[in-house]
């Protein structure tokens, strides 16, 4: 298995930790947590934009993992399995809260506010090379929840549109459209942020 080579900690392969965890070994649980906590927490934090929620969801994701670990057969990489579980935990939580995930009545027409200015005038400088990680993280945090979820799942976490559509219960077209809107919104936020920096110089 691909993950057999990964070390859960010095002297302990991830595959060994998984086997031991299936038998209830406390230290193996801890090793798996230490190995994967950042990725799971970062995912929860980016999708919810809230540290308290993200911590609770991280806890829930790992608990569900440990409850189900006996059923893990190695058909996929452990990290993929855990990641998908974490995404489902977050999405279920957001559904319970009634937050909009994807607009099901998505208009196919480009929204006025989403389009760039088409008027004649000097072109704005492109963003390439001007964004740092902190600004991008902040901008993602500022996105409306529905846009943020799709953006994080696709662009940050690497899920394909067909996977996102299945998880979110929407169409592939809807997923693409929402992703586009998220990126457009980020573009606006990042340009504003850059303009703000330049004006303070």
């Amino acid at each position, binding site marked *: 298995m691909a993950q057999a080579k990964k070390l859960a900690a010095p002297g302990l392969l991830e595959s060994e930790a998984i086997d031991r965890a299936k038998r209830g070994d406390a230290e193996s649980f801890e090793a798996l947590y230490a190995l994967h906590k*950042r990725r799971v927490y970062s995912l929860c934090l980016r999708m919810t934009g809230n540290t308290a929620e993200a911590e609770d969801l991280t806890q829930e994701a*790992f608990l569900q993992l*440990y409850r189900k670990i006996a059923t893990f057969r190695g058909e996929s990489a452990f990290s993929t399995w855990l990641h998908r579980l974490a995404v489902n935990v977050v999405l279920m939580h957001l559904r319970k809260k009634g937050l909009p995930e994807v607009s099901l009545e998505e208009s196919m027409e480009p929204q006025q506010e989403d389009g*760039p200015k*088409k008027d004649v005038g000097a072109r704005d400088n492109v963003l390439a090379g001007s964004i740092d990680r902190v600004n991008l993280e902040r901008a993602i945090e500022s996105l409306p929840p529905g846009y943020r979820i799709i953006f994080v799942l696709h662009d940050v976490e690497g899920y394909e549109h067909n996977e996102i559509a299945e998880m979110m219960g929407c169409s592939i077209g809807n997923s693409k459209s929402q992703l586009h809107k998220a990126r457009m919104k*980020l573009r606006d936020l990042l340009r504003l942020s850059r303009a703000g920096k330049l004006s303070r110089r």
Partner: protein
Amino acid sequence: MNCAEFQKALPYIIETGGNADEETHLKSCAVCSDLVQDLRYIAEAAKLLLPMQEPSPRVWSGIQGALEREGLVRPLAGTARFRPQAATILSPRPWATGGNLLAFAALLLIAVTIIWFRNHATGPAMTASVSQTVSSTAVDDDDNQVLSAVEKKSPALAAIYRENLDSVNAYIRDARRTVEQDPSDMGARDHLLRACDEKALLYKMALARTEQ
């Protein structure tokens, strides 16, 4: 093809490429070209975002408590002890100043205690090194450092921190004593973890005060 038509199709072609008309427009229109460049750049930059954030220690405390309450964990007999966190945290490190010191002390406290009661949970006598660590005055020195730091920044709060440090230390002592007497008492172990969690919270809040 005009810009409106191109941008209407853009969500569906940005990754796979468009038809001949769309490609022609993209090559000839500076506004749409800049737009596509920006959107692609954002997508690429997002891929490079690393999972940098770390959850607070209470997350693991919560998981651990739940695992024990649900009876999902038990130590394996005869397996080699595995302590990656301890190896990292307990190895000698240069003392950092100020806030880093407090944060380090909080983490050390939790790690030491978790390792300590794992030793007890599996029955064998404490190793000399762990025993020394647990009964050493290192924790007391850290407490004094915390209190001094709070006193310097917020004298009004120092008395409150002192009193509560005493309370939580008493909690840790009581819980630890009970676990020593009966290592199989999951409830007592849960109390010990929670007590450490509360002490870590106190350290964390003290750290926040000193940074203000």
